[in-house]
C-alpha cells in the first residue's frame, strides 16, 4: 500500500515544515515501533547498509543515546562525532568536518549545536537528510514529537486538550517545537513562568496563551509539562533565586490540584527534583516522564524509517 506522504530524504529541522497529516503519519509509525520495542527481540533489519552519524557540538547523553539506540535497532551503522574530542578542537571548521564525514559515506546526520540554524548548514554542505537534535533556543522537533506521541497514545488525540507548560520558556527549544506541533494537532497551549523567563511575543507567533500565575495557568489543564530550570542561568539575573522560583511555580501535589483531576504530568528531563517538580508528582501514577523517555526511542525509530527507509 502506498502512503500519501513521502518523508524520504526530507530534513527534520522543525515541525513547521511538516503538515498535520504528516505529523499524524509519524505518530502512527511510532505506534508500530512501540510494538517492536515491547517484544523480546527488538531488532529490525530495515536500515541495514545505511550509516547514520550523530554530530553533537553540545553535551547530551539521553538524546544521543536515544538516537543511537533507535538507529541500532533499525540495523543502521552509527558513528558518533563529539566536538570536544574531535578535530574541531584542533580548529577544523564545521564545513570541513561535514565534508570529511560525507567522504566516509554518511547517509543521514543527527545534529545538535548551540547555534540555531546549524542543522541547515550541515545539510547545505552534505546534501544529506538532517535531523535537528536541538539547535540553540530554536527547536528540538524529536523531543516535541515524543511529547506529542506520549499524550496522543494516552488520550487518543490532542484536539481540544488544554496543555500548560511551566518554567523557563525563554531558553527552551522544547517549548518552541511543542507549541508548533501541539497547535497543529488542535491543542490549546498556555505557557507559564516568571515574566523574565516567558517572552511576551509568544502568543503572536505561536497562538498560545501566556500566564504568569501558576494557579490560573493550570486551571482546566489536561496536561501539565514542567521544564528544566537551567540553573546555570541564574547568574544572568533573570530570576532572584531558585527558592523563589520554587515557591511560585513548583509542580507539587498541592499545586497540581489546580489542574484537571488526573491531569498528565510531563517533563523533558533532566529534572531538578525539588526545584521545578517534586518527586511526589514526578513519580506519581499521573506522570508520563519515563514513558516519554521510552517513546523517544520509538519516535526516533519511526523518523529514521520514514526519512531513510527507501530511495531518497
Amino acid at each position, binding site marked *: *500500500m*502506498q*502512503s500519501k*506522504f*513521502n*518523508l*524520504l530524504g526530507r530534513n527534520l529541522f522543525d515541525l513547521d515544515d511538516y503538515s498535520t497529516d504528516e505529523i499524524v503519519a509519524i505518530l*502512527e*509509525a511510532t*505506534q*508500530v515501533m512501540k*510494538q*517492536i520495542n515491547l*517484544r*523480546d*527481540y527488538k*531488532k*529490525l*533489519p*530495515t536500515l541495514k*547498509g545505511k550509516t547514520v552519524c550523530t554530530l553533537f557540538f553540545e553535551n547530551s547523553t539521553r538524546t544521543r543515546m536515544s538516537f543511537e539506540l533507535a538507529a541500532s535497532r533499525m540495523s543502521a551503522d552509527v558513528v558518533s562525532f563529539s566536538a570536544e574530542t574531535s578535530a574541531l578542537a584542533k580548529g577544523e571548521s564545521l564545513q570541513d568536518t561535514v565534508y570529511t564525514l560525507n567522504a566516509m559515506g554518511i547517509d543521514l546526520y543527527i545534529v545538535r549545536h548551540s547555534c540555531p540554524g546549524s542543522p541547515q548548514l550541515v545539510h547545505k554542505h552534505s546534501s544529506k537528510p538532517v535531523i535537528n537534535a536541538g539547535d540553540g533556543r530554536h527547536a528540538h522537533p524529536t523531543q516535541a514529537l515524543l511529547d506529542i506521541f506520549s499524550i496522543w497514545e494516552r488520550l487518543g488525540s490532542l484536539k481540544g486538550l488544554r496543555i500548560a507548560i511551566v518554567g523557563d520558556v525563554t531558553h527552551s527549544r522544547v517549548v518552541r517545537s511543542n507549541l508548533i506541533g501541539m497547535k497543529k494537532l488542535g491543542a490549546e497551549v498556555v505557557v507559564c513562568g516568571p515574566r523574565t523567563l516567558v517572552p511576551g511575543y509568544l502568543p503572536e507567533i505561536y497562538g498560545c496563551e501566556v500566564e504568569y500565575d501558576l494557579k490560573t495557568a493550570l486551571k482546566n489543564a489536561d496536561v501539565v509539562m514542567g521544564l528544566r530550570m537551567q540553573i546555570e542561568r541564574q547568574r544572568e539575573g533573570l530570576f532572584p533565586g531558585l527558592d523563589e522560583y520554587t515557591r511560585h511555580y513548583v509542580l507539587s501535589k498541592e499545586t497540581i490540584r489546580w489542574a484537571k483531576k488526573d491531569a498528565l504530568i510531563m517533563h523533558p528531563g533532566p529534572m531538578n527534583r525539588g526545584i521545578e517538580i517534586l518527586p511526589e508528582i514526578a513519580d506519581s501514577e499521573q506522570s508520563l516522564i519515563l514513558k516519554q523517555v521510552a517513546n523517544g526511542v520509538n519516535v526516533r525509530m*519511526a523518523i529514521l*524509517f*520514514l526519512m531513510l*527507509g*527507501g*530511495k531518497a
Partner: protein
Amino acid sequence: MNMKSKIMDASAIERAIRRIAHEIVEQNKGLENIYLVGIRSRGVPLAKRLADYLRQIENTEVPVGIIDITLYRDDLSTISHQPVLKGSEIGFDIENANIILIDDVLYTGRTVRAAFDALLDFGRPHKIQLCVLIDRGHRELPIKANYVGKNVPTAQDEIIKVSLAETDGEDSVKIFIRADVEA
C-alpha cells in the same frame, strides 16, 4: 484500465478457500496447535475466511494473526514511494506453534521470505506452512506453497490483481498487462 481476463469470480474464490480448509485439516490430521497468520494486506481477510471454514469443518476456533512485512522488505532501497506501516498483530505465542502463513499471490517469493523473517523475530515456531490463493510462477527464491487456490501461468509483464470484498468491495482475480496498469 485494460483487463486481459478475469480468472476467478466470487464463487470460485470461495470454493478454493473451502477446499484449502479441507486440505489443511487433512494434512495436519486436525487443527491441533494450528495458527493462521495473514500477510498484510490481502492475506488478512483470506486468513479470516479460512478460519471461518475451519470452524465449520472441525468446530474449532483457529487463532488468526497479522504480519506486516514492510520493515523486512529487501527492496526498500529501490522503491520510490513510501509504504504504509501498519504493524503486526500476533496475539498468541508462536513458540512451537504450527503456523500457516497466508497471502493472496505467490510470485517472486520475496514477500514470503520477508514474512518468514518478520515471523521468526516473534519466536521459534515448530513449523511454517504456506497458503496462497494464486501461484503465478516466476520464483526468484526457492519457496513453494503447501496450499494453492489456483495455479496461474503468467508472463512477466502481466499483473495479477486479487480483489476481496473486505478490502476492495468485490471478490475477483483478474489479469492485466503491465503497460495498461501504469498508463
